[in-house]
């Protein structure tokens, strides 16, 4: 409620003065006269007013005005009409009698414009997009407008007035959550219709609520990559929220029927996506993509087209687009974004929002690409062509300039998958090759060392070449990677290091763990620790493994677990069962070494997401120094931990004592009743003497030792 509204005590006072008993009033039944809000603003009022003015159905949404037509005499009228019908009949269905070309009553000549009414507003929009600027001949270039827009254009004042400059308002402290004294992390969950944000208070072994809101989002919520914003998705568009004390709306990004959103890694831009069912089932879906500036909320560029334009590359297939369409490159500065098209990659730069060098980057038959997470380097994959005459190829291309840094030809390849290391130091390409018979495939890895001179490539094959690769993951901030491989029901897990053997580093295997119930790998964001998880068929087996010491720290189970996520600091792991199942919904929080800290069941549990943190501001040297002197720093925190745990156990003891005492007062009362009623009970039982209620009966377990001599005989021991 707005500040202008009365507070509750004020209302009560006023009601008393007026002699109204508030308890008799059902507030939900009060209906304000329409159009009068008595100065009370509803929370969402501004949304209603500011949001893209709701579409008033003037009934002319399906009408367009085509201007700059030739002015013709009545003799040529029919011919011109025929031409127009031909042009616009291609884009949509013109309503019967829906073409009207006005005629000057004095001269009997046409006026040089016409109105066309389509069956649907969508067709009208499409016709406008397609034919605006259409050249009928040199002197007649069509100007097409929506009929509804004409009014708007008429209202544009002739004189330009400078925009009002608003006084600067200090923004909210968006990074406030990082200053938490206890250095806790936040997470967001969505269950039922409620979205909630909590601190993960591991010391108190419970979550500490921060903020909650019902119907906050229409479909999902998403943190921005550095954790500054939380995005919600609505029918009218997306919104981002953040702030110091609570979650305020920072910006709204209008985009009707938005389906997907994506942040650029440096949080400069937000991409929104929607697709619209075509009116004609034979047509393809219409796709709209908007790119907004997150700082200002301004629309920077939009892309529109049929879904076919965005699904090339083959991997998307019939199922539609593969999100995200635009992949961001150039590290944290968000310099470039790119999408794949037929035989080309479209790379845009964010300075101007146009194609780099004003043209797309042609690569015949390219099917997949990815950016280095830190540099402006593109990795491309082109499959085998001409039945093997032209080998498949992986190449690394530097942007801008499109300089090919490295290329590798690969033979008899069935598929390729690229895995970048998060530091951009390594690129692993998983290559599935056909065996000689072409009946089956086997897998190998091509490992690129991006930061070394000439980008050396190493080929890695597993000990057993025929093993299927189930999962692959790089160690963040490290030089190791883990692979789950095997064919049987219990696959093996292997760890490899990129840094062994002195100066000319070679990849080498560290260890292989045999027969694990695992099919997914989750490295700690700080490296060193990894969770080997058996999801789906393995019903949620978890193994917490230390890769430095090559030992299992703990095993656990979160039955039916569907999602696993490390907190951004690598201190805790969240495992969740989301509502893909009906049952067991909720989440568990574990420590990094596999100790179950607490569990929260939640029905209809949809989403769990840790709030990301921006990268540390400490230099690597400084971090090194801290970890060397860890003992010095940890003392303080250990003392705090101890205090908290003492306080907790004290609290617990007090609570138990209180419960016990409360219970004793009840039992004392019952005993008294029981004694008082003894006589009456006896009467009810016709004076049956024994009043034992079963419980009063005293059993006494006695151990009786009985000895019995079975046999005695003497033997002489020599």
């Amino acid at each position, binding site marked *: 409620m707005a500040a202008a509204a009365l507070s509750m005590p004020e209302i009560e006072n006023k009601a008393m003065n007026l002699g109204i008993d508030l308890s008799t009033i059902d507030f939900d039944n009060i209906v304000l006269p329409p159009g009068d809000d008595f100065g009370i603003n509803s929370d969402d009022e501004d949304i209603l007013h500011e949001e893209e003015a709701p579409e008033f159905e003037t009934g002319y949404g399906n009408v367009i005005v085509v201007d700059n037509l030739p002015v013709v005499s009545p003799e040529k009228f029919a011919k011109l009409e025929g031409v127009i019908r031909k042009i616009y009949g291609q884009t949509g269905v013109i309503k019967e009698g829906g073409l009207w070309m006005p005629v000057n009553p004095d001269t009997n000549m046409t006026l040089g414009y016409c109105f066309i009414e389509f069956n649907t507003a969508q067709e009208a929009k499409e016709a406008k997009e397609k034919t605006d600027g259409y050249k009928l001949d040199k002197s007649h270039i069509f100007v097409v407008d929506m009929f509804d827009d004409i009014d708007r254009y008429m209202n544009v004042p002739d004189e330009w007035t400078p925009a009002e400059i608003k006084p600067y308002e200090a923004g909210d402290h968006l990074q406030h959550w990082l200053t938490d004294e206890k250095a806790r992390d936040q997470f967001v969950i969505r269950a039922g219709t409620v979205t909630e944000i909590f601190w993960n208070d591991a010391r108190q072994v419970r979550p500490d609520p921060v903020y909650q809101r019902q119907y906050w989002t229409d479909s999902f919520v998403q943190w921005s990559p550095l954790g500054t914003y939380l995005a919600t998705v609505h029918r009218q568009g997306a919104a981002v929220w953040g702030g110091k004390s609570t979650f305020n709306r920072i910006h709204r990004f209008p985009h009707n029927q938005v389906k997907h959103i994506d942040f650029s890694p440096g949080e400069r831009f937000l991409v929104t996506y929607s697709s619209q069912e075509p009116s004609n089932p034979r047509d393809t879906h219409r796709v709209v993509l908007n790119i907004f500036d997150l700082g200002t909320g301004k629309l920077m560029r939009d892309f529109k087209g049929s879904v076919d334009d965005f699904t090339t590359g083959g991997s998307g297939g019939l199922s539609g687009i593969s999100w995200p369409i635009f992949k961001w490159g150039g590290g944290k500065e968000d310099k470039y974004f790119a999408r794949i098209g037929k035989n080309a990659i479209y790379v845009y730069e964010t300075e101007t929002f146009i194609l780099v060098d004003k043209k797309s980057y042609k690569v015949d038959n390219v099917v997949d690409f990815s950016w280095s997470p830190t540099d402006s380097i593109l990795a491309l994959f082109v499959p085998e062509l001409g039945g093997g005459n032209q080998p498949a190829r992986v190449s690394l291309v530097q942007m801008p300039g499109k300089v090919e840094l490295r290329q590798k030809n690969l033979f008899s390849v069935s598929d390729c998958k690229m895995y970048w290391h998060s530091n951009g130091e390594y690129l692993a390409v998983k290559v599935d090759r056909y065996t000689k018979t072409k009946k089956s495939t086997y897998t190998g890895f091509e490992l690129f060392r991006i930061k070394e001179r000439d980008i050396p490539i190493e080929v890695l094959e597993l000990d057993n070449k025929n093993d299927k690769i189930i999962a692959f993951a790089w160690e963040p901030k490290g030089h190791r990677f883990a692979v789950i491989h095997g064919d049987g029901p219990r696959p093996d897990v292997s760890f490899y290091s990129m840094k062994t053997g002195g100066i000319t580093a070679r990849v080498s295997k560290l260890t292989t763990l045999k027969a694990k119930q695992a099919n997914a790998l989750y490295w700690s964001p700080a490296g060193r620790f990894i969770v080997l998880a058996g999801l789906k068929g393995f*019903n949620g087996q978890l193994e917490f493994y230390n890769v430095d010491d090559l030992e299992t720290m703990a095993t656990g189970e979160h*039955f*039916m677990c569907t999602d696993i996520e490390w907190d951004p600091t690598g201190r805790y792991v969240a495992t969740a069962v989301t509502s893909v*199942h*009906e*049952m*067991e919904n909720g989440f568990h929080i574990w420590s990094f070494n596999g100790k179950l800290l607490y569990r929260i*069941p939640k029905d209809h549990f949809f989403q769990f997401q840790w709030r990301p943190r921006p990268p540390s501001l400490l230099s690597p040297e400084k971090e090194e120094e801290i970890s060397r002197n860890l003992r010095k720093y940890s003392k303080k925190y250990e003392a705090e931990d101890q205090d908290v745990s003492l306080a907790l156990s004290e609290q617990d003891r007090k609570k*138990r004592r209180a*419960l*016990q005492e409360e*219970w004793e007062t*009840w*039992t004392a009362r*019952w005993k008294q*009743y*029981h004694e008082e*009623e003894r006589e*009456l*009970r006896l009467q*009810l*039982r*016709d004076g*049956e003497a024994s009043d034992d*209620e*079963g*419980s009063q*009966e005293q*059993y006494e377990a006695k151990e009786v030792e009985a000895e019995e001599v079975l046999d005695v005989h003497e033997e002489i021991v020599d």
Partner: protein
Amino acid sequence: MRPILMKGHERPLTFLKYSREGDLLFSCAKDHTPTVWFADDGERLGTYRGHNGAVWCCDVSRDSTRLVTGSADQSVKLWDVQTGTQLYTFNFNSPARSVDFSVGDKLVVITTDPFMGNPSTIQVKRIARDPADQTSDSVLTIKGPQGRINRAVWGPLNKTIISAGEDSIIRIWDAETGNLLKETDKESGHQKTISSLCMSADKSHFLTGSADKSAKLWDSRSLTLLKTYQMDRPVNAVAISPLLDHVVIGGGQEAVNVTMTDRRAGKFEAKFYHKILQDEIGGVKGHFGPINALAFNPDGRSFSSGGEDGYVRLHHFDPEYFSIRM
């Protein structure tokens, strides 16, 4: 100790009842024959043949001579425990859901389901000392609550009747006049159907289990909510330990929600909670269907559970159970 598996019923179990001495265990099931077992070793002593429908509930008199059973065949029957002869049949025009002897065994409270336009009722019948004098007249008939009344029991000194059922409200009635004395409110009460109700040995408090995945402990005179035990599954059966401050709660996912992949998914264990601290103590696994019935032996040293799977499992506690520290 290993539980004793008692396989004598062909259909899901509905109710379990120990005799006062704790030597006999009576079981009711959806097959038509209540059965009596030795509570010590699980040996089957005999059955009570005569019902023509699922038997929902039973009670045994304090001297273990009379058994009363309520059945879906729209009758309540009185049996001679020892011989298994039918002594008397009360006929109704809808299924009988619950039966309970009063203190002194002179009265029995019966609930009937809403059926073919008849509303659900709570009825009190007088039990004659000599079966030959038995009549079918009702001493008291209470109507009012909507939907099925799953359980009605006598309060302390037969002064009140406590009922609970599908409308998720617990009501205390005056056993003389049939007036409503107390009922639970929305905040403290259950949110969904109450499936079970179990009295403490001295009738001072009682435990209710509900489909809202909780069990609640109430004072039987004031209807004050004392404790709530939060579960992760619908509750079908509850029992209070007469010996220790424990309660046992059973239930399970409804059949429609049970996946076929893993038995654990159904949550068919019987869970032990500390009655005062409301903390979970442990669980007893074994059934492969929801638990429908639970009962403690009056000596508190064993308990039995009956499941949708048709088995009765009789558990004698290990010595460690009696030294659990919370």
